[in-house]
């Protein structure tokens, strides 16, 4: 069973840490579907959200190998609990005057924002779960997607289960 897992990794914000994490994945043959990283409110630490897939044994090994990295402070498999995940997409859709209403109404249904309009295109910003994003992209595809940028998933546990480490927030 290749289940999708969202793993949140709190790391020290030091040079080379991203390379250590991504190198561990590639060196051991684990997949990375997406990886998003940015500093936490405490700039000494960064948080990575890694989306990966694998059977139970592989996911266990990924988590252990992450914990073994010296600069990794905390690892949590969010998929094992209740969590919120979001991804943002910027998508430029081919839209002349004729197609424009169709694009706008689709964007509206998905509560997407129009961030740029040109003579022959509209750029839309969509935020949501992977399912929602996949759905809107399916609808926009026949109109003509010219360019597409995805951030990769970021995720946070619901309620009080925070990812804090002493000194980090």
């Amino acid at each position, binding site marked *: 069973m290749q289940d999708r897992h969202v793993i949140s990794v709190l*790391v*020290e914000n030091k*040079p*080379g840490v991203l*390379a*250590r994490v991504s*190198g*561990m994945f590639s*060196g051991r043959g684990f997949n990375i579907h997406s990886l998003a990283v940015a500093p936490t409110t405490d700039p000494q630490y960064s948080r990575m959200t890694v989306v990966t897939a694998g059977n139970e*044994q592989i996911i*266990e*090994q990924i988590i*252990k*190998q992450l*914990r*073994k990295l*010296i*600069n*990794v*402070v905390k690892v949590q498999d969010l998929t094992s609990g209740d969590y919120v995940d979001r991804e943002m997409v910027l998508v430029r859709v081919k839209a002349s005057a004729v197609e424009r209403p169709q694009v706008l109404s689709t964007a509206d249904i998905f509560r997407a924002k129009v961030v740029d309009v040109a003579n022959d295109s509209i750029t839309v910003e969509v935020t949501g779960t992977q399912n929602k994003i996949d759905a809107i992209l399916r609808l926009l595809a026949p109109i003509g997607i010219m360019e597409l940028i995805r951030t990769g998933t970021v995720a946070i546990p619901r309620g009080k289960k925070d990812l804090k*480490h*002493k*000194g980090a927030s």
Partner: protein
Amino acid sequence: MKINGAQILFRSLKEEGVDTIFGYPGGAVLDIFDAMVRHFSGDFRFVLVRHEQAAVHAADGYARATGRPGICLVTSGPGGTNTVTGLATAYMDSIPVIVFTGQVPTPLIGNDAFQEADIVGITRPCTKHNYLVSRVDDLATTIKEAFIIATTGRPGPVLVDLPKDVAQAKAVFEYPHTLKLPSYKTTVKPHMPSIKRAAELITTAERPVIYAGGGVISSAAYKELRTFAEMTGFPVAMTLMGLGCFPGTHPLSLGMLGMHGTYRANMAVANSDLLFAVGARFDDRVTGKLEEFATNAKIIHVDIDPTSIQKTIAVDIPIVADARDVLVKLIEVLKNKGYSAKSGKRLKDWHALLTRWRSEQRLRFDRSTETIKPQFVVEKLYEITSGKAIISTEVGQNQMWAAQYYLFDRPRTLLTSGGLGTMGYGFPAAIGAQIAFPDRLVIDIAGDGSIQMNIQELATVAQYQLPVKIAILNNGFLGMVRQWQERFYDNIYAHTDITASPDFVKLAEAYGAVGLRARNTAEVEPTIKKALQIKGPVIMDFIVEREEGVYPMVPSGSSIKEMILV
């Protein structure tokens, strides 16, 4: 008072109790070498090797023989890249080695400067951790961290990259004696409920086997392992890395298990109902075909590294902790349960079976030949040295015969590249051990292929008059690969014939060492005896049976029950 980075390095090493450094100078480390000679001449023994790879292997051999971290100092660029094989070797076998590399000055980093290499990037996957020190103020703390990380938990190599301007810049020296590393978790206390569950299985097992690896040596748990084995009556099979952690001559020793393990060790594991794995990692050379490995056994797995547990094989009771802590607790729990050697009486049938396997299929070779059998050389080395030498090996047949025929009674007496299988490891490792123990006998059991991978170190042993003895089992082949070609590739010996090798006797002499040769069985013993009487370095060139194979052998990917016996 401010001192420069180079001096901070040596002051820090002194704080860590370092007195020996293996290395090779170069442009980026001129300031460091200058400081060593100018300010610390009486403090360190510097061993100048002839290739940086050998410096790391020597530091590694020093670490394996002593249990203390081995220290290495080399220059930037090629100096650093030459350490990669040494680092990977130490990493696979969990050996504490700290390598300091020079680096081009920080303003030049990234410019493809002369002798620049991104050594931190290159060695990231083959070190436990590594550092680029970009400010002299961070140097002392970084060195402290490097020592902590290299020597605690599951040990391993650490590399510290020192740009030339950092070595030149000045700072006040203050060595941190304690350091908190927020993200580095070391030893955890053994989980008592798991220990109690393990004790339950131990008291009821009918066909138990202890499977002991290098972790027993790293954690210095040999006494506890022996106590545990003797009180339970459990037989002990060792991995290549574990040899010596339990006396090889002990009645409970099954010898080595795995691909070239003994018949009785593999049969015992295959038929066991309880496998107590300690400080071992279920490596493919041990398990053979995973689906058929110890299928009827409950498995208790003790390891300090959580990633070793459930990596290849599902276990019933995982215990993440230091091997010694676990054995101490386990012995205590068993004693409290009133368990004693007598309780082991239920194992009578099991012991009888083990004895039967032992007598059915002993390690053996043809003793009637005039041509030297390589096994005979190792056996003679064992007899003549009374098993008391420190043995290093190269990799291949020489390594397996050393593991089979030299019975290691003490820990830290076998230095061998188990995980990475690095040809060229044994000779420099022997140098490291000999530097640590000038009065002990250190012998490198080598092949004619492997020895040539670091043969330049003859200059090092000659320079320091290190009495390292090298026994070359010379068959004119890359023997282990040839053996596989014989067995599995229709006898097509693709590029494994290396009869075009130098005259090792003359070669030894060229370097200022002594060379001896034995051409037939009768000459083996006199050659060894003569070599051992010589104070300096000696090469013994044993011209052995060309196509002798290492047996038993479990073909790669087969169950360990399926041994080829001869």
